[in-house]
C-alpha cells in the first residue's frame, strides 16, 4: 500500500505544479514534429544505420581475429589481444573518437578514406571489436571440448575443426549477445559529432540537435530519440525471442 501512496503523492504534485502547456510546447510541438520528420529525419536515420553497420562489420572481423588470438596457444598473440581488449574497453569511446578524428592532423599525409564515414567506422569498429572479441571468445569456449576431439580424431586440422565444427556452433550462442552489442554501437554512433560533419552527413543525434538549436525547441531532439528506438526496440525484442527459443531448445 505504501508504494501506491507515494505514487499518488507524486502524481498529485505533478498535476498541481507542472506547467503542462509549456512542457507540451517545448517537447511535443506538433508543427515541429511534422517539420522534423519531413526535413531530414529519413536521411539522418539512414546515416546512423550506415555509420553503425560499417562499424559493426569491421568490429565483427577484428573481434573474431582478437578472439582467436586470445585462444591461441602462442603466448604473444594472447598478450597482444589482451592488451588491445583491456585498452579499448577501458577508454571512453569519446576519447577514441577524438583520437581518430585528430589522426590525419597528427600524421600529415594520412587520410582515412571515405571520410567521415571511414573515420567513424574505424573508431567505432575498434571500440566495438574489443567488446565483441570477448563475446566471441566466450561463445567459442562454450562449445564442449569433446567437439574438437571428435573433429580432430576424424583427421581435421585444428583450423578445419574450428571453422566447420566449433565456430558453426559458437555462432548460435553468440547471436543474442552480439545483437546487444549492435544496440550499443547504434547508441555510440551518436559520437560522430566529434568528427565534424556537414548537414547531409548528420546522424540522428546531430540532426536532432541542430534542428532543435535553430528552432529553440527540444521537439526535434525527441523525434530523433524516437528514431533510435525505432531501430533498437525491434532488435531488443529479437534478442529476447532468440533467448527464449534457445532455452526451450526450439
Amino acid at each position, binding site marked *: 500500500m505504501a508504494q501506491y501512496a507515494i505514487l499518488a503523492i507524486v502524481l498529485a504534485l505533478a498535476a498541481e505544479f507542472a506547467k503542462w502547456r509549456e512542457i507540451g510546447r517545448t517537447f511535443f510541438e506538433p508543427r515541429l514534429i511534422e517539420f522534423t520528420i519531413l526535413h531530414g529525419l529519413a536521411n539522418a536515420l539512414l546515416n546512423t544505420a550506415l555509420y553503425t553497420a560499417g562499424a559493426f562489420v569491421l568490429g565483427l572481423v577484428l573481434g573474431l581475429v582478437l578472439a582467436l588470438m586470445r585462444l591461441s596457444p602462442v603466448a604473444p598473440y594472447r598478450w597482444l589481444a589482451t592488451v588491445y581488449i583491456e585498452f579499448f574497453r577501458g577508454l571512453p569511446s569519446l576519447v577514441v573518437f577524438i583520437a581518430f578524428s585528430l589522426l590525419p592532423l597528427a600524421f600529415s599525409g594520412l587520410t582515412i578514406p571515405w571520410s567521415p564515414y571511414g573515420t567513424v567506422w574505424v573508431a567505432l569498429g575498434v571500440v566495438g571489436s574489443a567488446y565483441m572479441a570477448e563475446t566471441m571468445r566466450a561463445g567459442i569456449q562454450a562449445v564442449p571440448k569433446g567437439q574438437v576431439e*571428435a573433429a580432430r580424431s576424424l583427421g581435421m586440422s585444428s583450423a578445419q575443426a574450428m571453422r566447420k565444427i566449433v565456430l558453426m556452433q559458437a555462432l*548460435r550462442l553468440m547471436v543474442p549477445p552480439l545483437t546487444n552489442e549492435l544496440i550499443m554501437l547504434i547508441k555510440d554512433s551518436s559520437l560522430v559529432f566529434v568528427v565534424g560533419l556537414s548537414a547531409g552527413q548528420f546522424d540522428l543525434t546531430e540532426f536532432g540537435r541542430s534542428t532543435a538549436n535553430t528552432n529553440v525547441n527540444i521537439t526535434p531532439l525527441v523525434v530523433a530519440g524516437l528514431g533510435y528506438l525505432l531501430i533498437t526496440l525491434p532488435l531488443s525484442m529479437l534478442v529476447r525471442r532468440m533467448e527464449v527459443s534457445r532455452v526451450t531448445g526450439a
Partner: protein
Amino acid sequence: MSGIDPGRTVVKIEGLHKRFGQNHVLRGIDFSVARGEVVCIIGPSGSGKSTLLRCINLLERPQQGRLEVNGENLLDPDCDIDAARRHIGMVFQQFNLFPHHTALENCIVAPMTVLRLTRAAAEATARANLERVGLADKLGAYPAQLSGGQQQRVAIARALSMEPALMLFDEPTSALDPELVGEVLTAMRKLAEAGMTMIVVTHEMAFAREVADRVVFMDAGTIIEQGPPDSVIGAPREARTQSFLRRVLNPVHLD
C-alpha cells in the same frame, strides 16, 4: 580368432609414459595389436586405460616411449598427425556427435573436408555405414532427436566413414541406459566379425568374453596381465585381476 594376420602389426607401443603434472598415469606400457585383432582393455577407473587409448591417436601426447600405428612413428616430430588420424577411428563415451548436423551430415563432414570427397561420394559411404549400424531410416535426424544408443551408433558410422584401419572405443556404452547397451554392442560385434581391428576400453565383461581375441587388464598405469578372455576373465592369475573381477562380476557380494 579368424582374420588375424600375426605378421601385420597395427599398433606397437614400447615403454610409454604419460604424466599429467605430478600424476604419473601411464608407467611404461608395452603393448601391440595385430591386424584384425579385437582387444578389450579392462581395469578399475583411474588405471590409465582411457589415457592409453587417447595416446594412440594422440589426443594425449605421451612424454616418453615409442608409438607406432600402421608402421608410422607417431611421436616423430615430422609425423603428420592429421594424416595419421584419418586411419584411426574413435568412438567416445559421450558420443560427441556434431549437434548442428544431421546423422548423415555427421558422417560426411570429415570425408568432404579432409579427404576432399564429393558430396555424392561421401554420402554413398555414409549411407552404407549408417545402414550397417541399423540406422538407414534416421539419415535426416539431428542428434538431439535420437536416443543415446542411436547416437552412439551414428558415432560409430561417422568414424567408419573415414575408412579407418583401426577403431578405438572409449567406454562406448558407459553413458547409455542399460536397455540401450545391447544395440551398440551388437553393432560393434558385427564390426569385429567383419575383421576390423579394434581396441575397446570397456566395463562390459560379457562383450569382452564373447567378442575379444585378447583381454588386457590394467591397474595403476601398468598392464598387469593379458591373454585370451577365457584365461584373463575366466581364470585370472594375478591377485589384482581377481579382486577387480570379483567386484565387477559380483558387485553386491559382501566379502
